[in-house]
């Protein structure tokens, strides 16, 4: 094993960072020493270094379970860009042929990202069981908890997986875990002796500002005002793709000197990379986006994060706001709220899980399959389309059916008595989850109407105290726009160049 004292040297050598950020070294040291660790670090604090460096220093392989394929891909791209080549991402998007090829050479990798769904497949599990797994990482570990903001049933099976991999040391990471959620993580992974490293997530340099407006027109007016006053890198979050697109169009028309674009998960791969990187590269000033934007983005000078719509819960809000001011300079979070906004998140919550009608239809479908002894289609998308369910809805149901023994592999096992009991039980889970989310939303709405310090109230569920504001605090503590004077960014437009000149410039021809 490498000397602990040389950790900084290793960090410099592999990642070209001169020093650790808060929490990283403590977590890495514990891992190297063989402990199980639970790390709660705020967004933008470099969570991934906590396993990327150990992956290089430990003998065997490191497995990282990551819930979002796009996030996984981003991480692999960034690692490859920084010369960490022995890394691979395994998920359902890789075609079976390619996957087979990768499986054959799995021993060549040091770091393997994998989706929780794929980890359920016996084929890959068999291969991994025969390898030396030195570190098992659960990224976004709050997904384990029923009380976490992005609960994913597949995560609940990770405890059993860790067991079949002969209990490698385990690292659970999250940026958003209340004490309640932390307990859930520890017990679900069956790692009771986990060392906890919990770091405060409050950002002293961000001022919180809520402005109540009459409706969309007024929201747009405010956006135009602030964006023309402040020429700084800004993110505007929307809860729908179409609204992000529409607003980007309006703002571009009204603010002709600003470079504005939209970003969401429905765009083509190349366009997503180009928009992300234009923003990183200061070719763009403002991005109108959905929550799909930002994960894995490491831009230090975002000054303004605006929420055009109300987020569904404080956790998402804290994460999104945390993208502002990573360089420590004074930055602002602005939430625009109008009374009509409450309807949108409420509907989103209702549509996340299947309704009772959906449930009845799915049960009838399974009943028919069970009676006729027909297996479920292999392809989940087929089932989703047939039953008109979203991916999340079907994933949720499938987990429930498996848990209750209604489905084994792809076979439906019909049992009249049990099924009516199970129906009630699943219905109960849905009701419970929905009311949990409604409560989360209520928390968010209450925060909007809060009369006392917004900063204190925002973080109160996550940590016992906040360190106070380093600049202005919040709109309840007397925030004044005029007192916020961030540095302007220079806009270097090469307008007026002919295409030949632009071509010459891009290809670096003198």
């Amino acid at each position, binding site marked *: 094993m490498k000397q602990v004292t040389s950790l900084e040297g290793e960090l410099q050598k592999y990642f070209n960072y001169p020093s650790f950020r808060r929490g990283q070294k403590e977590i890495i040291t514990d891992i190297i020493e063989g402990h199980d660790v639970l790390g709660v670090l705020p967004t933008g604090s470099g969570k991934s270094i906590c396993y990327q460096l150990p992956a290089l220093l430990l003998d065997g392989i490191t497995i990282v379970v990551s819930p979002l394929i796009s996030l996984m891909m981003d991480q692999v791209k960034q690692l490859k860009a920084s010369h960490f080549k022995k890394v691979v991402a395994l998920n359902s998007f890789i075609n079976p042929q390619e996957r087979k090829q990768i499986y054959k050479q799995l021993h060549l990798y040091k770091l393997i990202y994998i989706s929780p769904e794929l980890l359920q497949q016996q084929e890959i599990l068999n291969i991994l069981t025969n390898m030396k797994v030195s570190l098992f990482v659960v990224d976004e570990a709050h997904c384990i908890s029923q009380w976490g903001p992005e609960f994913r049933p597949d995560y609940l099976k990770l405890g059993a997986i860790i067991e079949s991999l002969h209990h490698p040391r385990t690292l659970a990471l999250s940026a958003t875990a209340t004490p309640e959620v932390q307990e859930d993580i520890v017990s679900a992974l069956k790692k009771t002796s986990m060392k906890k490293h919990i770091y405060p997530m409050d950002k002293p340099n961000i001022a919180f500002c809520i402005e109540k407006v009459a409706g969309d027109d007024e929201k747009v007016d405010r956006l135009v005002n602030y964006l023309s006053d402040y020429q700084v890198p800004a993110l505007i979050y929307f809860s729908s793709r179409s609204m992000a697109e529409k607003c980007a169009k309006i703002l571009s028309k009204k603010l002709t000197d600003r470079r504005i674009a939209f970003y969401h998960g429905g765009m083509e791969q190349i366009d997503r*990379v*180009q928009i992300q990187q234009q923003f990183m590269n200061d070719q763009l000033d403002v991005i109108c986006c959905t929550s799909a934007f930002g994960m894995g983005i490491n831009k230090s000078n975002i000054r303004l994060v605006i929420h055009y719509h109300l987020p569904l819960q404080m956790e998402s809000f804290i994460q999104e706001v945390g993208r502002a001011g990573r360089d420590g300079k004074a930055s602002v979070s602005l939430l625009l709220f109008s009374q009509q906004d409450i309807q949108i998140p409420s509907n989103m919550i209702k549509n996340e899980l299947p309704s009772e009608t959906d449930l009845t239809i799915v049960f009838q479908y399974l009943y028919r399959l069970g009676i006729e002894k027909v297996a479920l289609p292999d392809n989940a998308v087929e089932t989703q389309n047939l039953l008109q369910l979203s991916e999340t809805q079907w994933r949720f149901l499938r987990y429930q059916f498996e848990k209750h023994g209604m489905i084994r592999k792809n076979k439906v096992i019909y049992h009249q008595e049990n099924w009516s009991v199970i129906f009630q039980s699943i219905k109960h889970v849905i009701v419970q989850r929905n009311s949990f989310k409604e409560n989360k939303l209520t928390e968010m709405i209450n925060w909007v109407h809060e009369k006392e310090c917004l900063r204190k109230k925002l973080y109160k569920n996550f940590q016992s105290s906040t360190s106070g504001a380093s600049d202005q605090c919040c709109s309840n503590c007397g925030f004044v726009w005029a007192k916020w004077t961030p540095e302007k960014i220079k806009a270097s437009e090469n307008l007026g160049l002919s*295409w030949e000149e632009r*071509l010459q410039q*891009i290809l*670096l021809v003198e």
Partner: protein
Amino acid sequence: MNRVLASLEGYFLKDYFVTYKEPFRKDMKRLLLERILLSCFVRINAERTPSSIYYLLKGKRSVQTLQDAHIYKLEAFYGIYKTITKQQFDNKVKELINIGMLENNLELEKGCMVSKSAKKWLHEQSQLLEYNGLKYYEKSDVFIERFLLLIQTLTNTKMINYAFIPVIDNPKVESWVRNIYMNVKGRETQVLKGIYNEIREVLQKFPELEASIFVDRLTGYKNYGLSLPQLSEKYNLNEHDIQLSIVQILHRVIWRIEQEKQKYPYLSSFINDIESEIQLTHSANETYQLIMKGFQVDAIAQMRNLKKNTIYDHIVEIALHYGDFVIDEYVTNQEQQDILYAINQTNAYKLKDIKQNVSDHISYFQIRLVLAKQNRL
């Protein structure tokens, strides 16, 4: 054949000395999708459903779609708009019906006719529609992906920056670029200059608008290209026009390179190794191998555990693919003459109409086979 049809004779890139008098104006509408759809509808003459055009644009790998492309001389448009969705397509057709450019009535069953005014409008359009879909539908993707990634790689390595996020996420393209990079390492300046000279010369031969869009899509060192929505905003064109313009310029560029390979050594190297001909499907190829060994349809169906009709489909595909494939074993000479006569009589390619005009013993398979053979030429 009337004047309008005559003017639509070819969409292929063919006239080497054509000049493109198409100055760039900010308010210019291209309406490429509308023009392409209407052109397809004119050719198909209500003998197929609108969906057949959707599959054509998507480049569906089915015998039916390929055969339609040949029959109606729409090879140029095969696979030129792979990202269009069924919904976008249906909306556009509906729109064309609503504004009276397309007409559909019960007599036409499911097909649509192009209205007189629309034909006139089509005829008035001066910008050329030039594609080479069937030949380039795959090649153009490979070309642009390699081009984008190689330019990004070489400009970055020239600036000694080895950490950048690639705009193309495709392992095959990545490994191609890696190979090239290994060969030209240290000579980035020279290679970039070479590529610059060649691509500039090629682009100069085409409309300024297209050249400009092409350049804006490129990513270099600390200089990321524009997304489709950004292009659409910058040029005040809808996204269909942007997509179809990009495909058009790509086809034009590739065509140009292929005409004078010696003149464009750098650009040729992007496509030298790519097959331009469409490949037979794997299954049709297996059937083909067995036919070559002298097996009959029944035997092949039995051996491969497939339906006879599937084997017939394969044979039509093979006839479309290999111009010299002899079909006499499946349709006698006399039968071929009968079918050809019926095609001339009905002046249509509707299988049902042709079938009604030939002796009863002639099958749909035989008609399709003759059509395949006929239109391959």
